[in-house]
C-alpha cells in the first residue's frame, strides 16, 4: 500500500542536508509552509539555496531561516519589503547571495524545470539589467532572453487537503507557487491542514496530481498572519 503521509513535519524533512536546494512555496506568508520551515530550522542544516518569491516577512518562516544563518543563496523576485529586515541585514553584511528574477520568469523557470524543458525564451526583462550578459533571440518580431530552468532537491509547500497518494488541493491565493514547485523538485513535501481518504478529493478538481508529491504531513492549521507590504 502506498502511503506518502508522515506523522510529523520533523520526520518529513529529516533527510534535507547541508547545502541542499529547497523551493519554498508562498507569496509573502500566504501559502508559506511555516511548520515545515520550522522543522527545517530545528534540524539545524545550513548552506541552503532557497527558491521563494520573497526573502522573508517579519520573524517567521523564511525570515527565521535567514535570521538563523542557514541560507547561503536566495533566488527570488521581491526581497525588499518593509518587513524583510532579516534579509536586508544579511544582504548588507554580505552573508547571503541574491539572484533576483522577475516573478514571471521565476514561475516559468520553475515550471520549465518541472516540465523537462532545456531552457525557455522569455520576453520579460529584455533590454534590462536583469538580462545583462544573457543570450537573446529575435523570434517572429519580438525580442526574447534565454533563461534556464530552476530545479531543486526539495520543495516545501502548503496545501489545504491531501491524500495518501499525494493529490493536493489548495486554499485561495495560498496556491501561488505550490503546484509548479511540486513539479520541479526531486522530493516535494506538502504540509496540509487535512489528510483525507482516497477518493474524497474530487478528481476533476485535484490541482496537483500525486505524481508530483512524495510526502504529505498534516499540521495544525494556523491562519496565515498579515504582513506589511
Amino acid at each position: 500500500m502506498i502511503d506518502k503521509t508522515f506523522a510529523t513535519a520533523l520526520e518529513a524533512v529529516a533527510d534535507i542536508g547541508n547545502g541542499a536546494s529547497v523551493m519554498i512555496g508562498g507569496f509573502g506568508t500566504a501559502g508559506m509552509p511555516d511548520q515545515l520551515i520550522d522543522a527545517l530550522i530545528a534540524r539545524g542544516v545550513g548552506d541552503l539555496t532557497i527558491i521563494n518569491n520573497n526573502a522573508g516577512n517579519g520573524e517567521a518562516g523564511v525570515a527565521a531561516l535567514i535570521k538563523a544563518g542557514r541560507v547561503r543563496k536566495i533566488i527570488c523576485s521581491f526581497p525588499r519589503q518593509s518587513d524583510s529586515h532579516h534579509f536586508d541585514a544579511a544582504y548588507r553584511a554580505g552573508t547571503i547571495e541574491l539572484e533576483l528574477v522577475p516573478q514571471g520568469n521565476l514561475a516559468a523557470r520553475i515550471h520549465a524545470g518541472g516540465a523537462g524543458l532545456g531552457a525557455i525564451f522569455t520576453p520579460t526583462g529584455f533590454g534590462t539589467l536583469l538580462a545583462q550578459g544573457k543570450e537573446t533571440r529575435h523570434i517572429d518580431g519580438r525580442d526574447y532572453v534565454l533563461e534556464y530552468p530552476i530545479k531543486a532537491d526539495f520543495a516545501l509547500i502548503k496545501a489545504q487537503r491531501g491524500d495518501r497518494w499525494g493529490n493536493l488541493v489548495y486554499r485561495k491565493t495560498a496556491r501561488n507557487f505550490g503546484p509548479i514547485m511540486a513539479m520541479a523538485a526531486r522530493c516535494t513535501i506538502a504540509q496540509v491542514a487535512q489528510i483525507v481518504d482516497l477518493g474524497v478529493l474530487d478528481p476533476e478538481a485535484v490541482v496537483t496530481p500525486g505524481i508530483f508529491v512524495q510526502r504529505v504531513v498534516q499540521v495544525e492549521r494556523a491562519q496565515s498572519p498579515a504582513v506589511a507590504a
Partner: protein
Amino acid sequence: MNRLTRDQMAERVARDIPEGAYVNLGIGLPTKVADYLPIDRDVFLQSENGLLGMGPAPTPGDEDWELINAGKQAVTLLSGGCFFHHADSFAMMRGGHLDICVLGAFQVSVNGDLANWHTGEPGAIPAVGGAMDLAIGARQTLVMMELLTRQGDSKLVETCTYPLTGLGCVSRVYTDLAVFDVGPAGAAVVEMTPGLSIDELRRLTGLPLDAAV
C-alpha cells in the same frame, strides 16, 4: 497650478477602462483605480498572486490572509472569480491575455520605455516582483504618476536615467497635470488640467511636446 489629487488621477484612469476588460492594477497608487470603477461596469481585476475577479477590501475583522492581492493586502473574491497558480497567472500577462495594466513609475520616456523597479543607487536592495512581466505583457500598459519629482524634475523624459523595467512598453501616461500618449512617434499631450498651457508643459518637462491628434 491646478493639480489632480491622487484620487482624481485614479478616477481619470478608471474612465478609460472599458466594460469587459481584463485589468491588472499595480501596487501603490494604481490600486486606487479600483475604487472608481462604476459598479455597473464589469471589469475583471487580475492579481499576479493568482486571482481573477478580485473584489474590494473586506470589512475590518473579516480579513482572510490567504486571500490577498499583490500588495499583500486582504481582498475579496467576486462571485464568478477564481484562483490559479503562478505559471498560469504570468501566462495571462506574457501571453497577451491581459488587456490593460496600470503601473506606477519613476520615469517614462517619450518612446514608452518604463523605469519603475530600481533606483540604481549604491546600497539599494533591488526588488522587481512582477513589474517586468506586467510592463511588457499586457496589451496596453498605462502609467500613473505625478509629473514632477519633489525637486521639480519631470518624470516624463527623453531617455530614462533609472534602470529600465521594459522597453517601449508604455502607451499612455496619466499625471496630476496632464495625460500623454507616448510611443514610437514621441510624446503628445492628450489633455491638460484647466489653466495649463502646452507652453507651460513644455517648460516643466523640457520636452518638445505637441497636442495629440
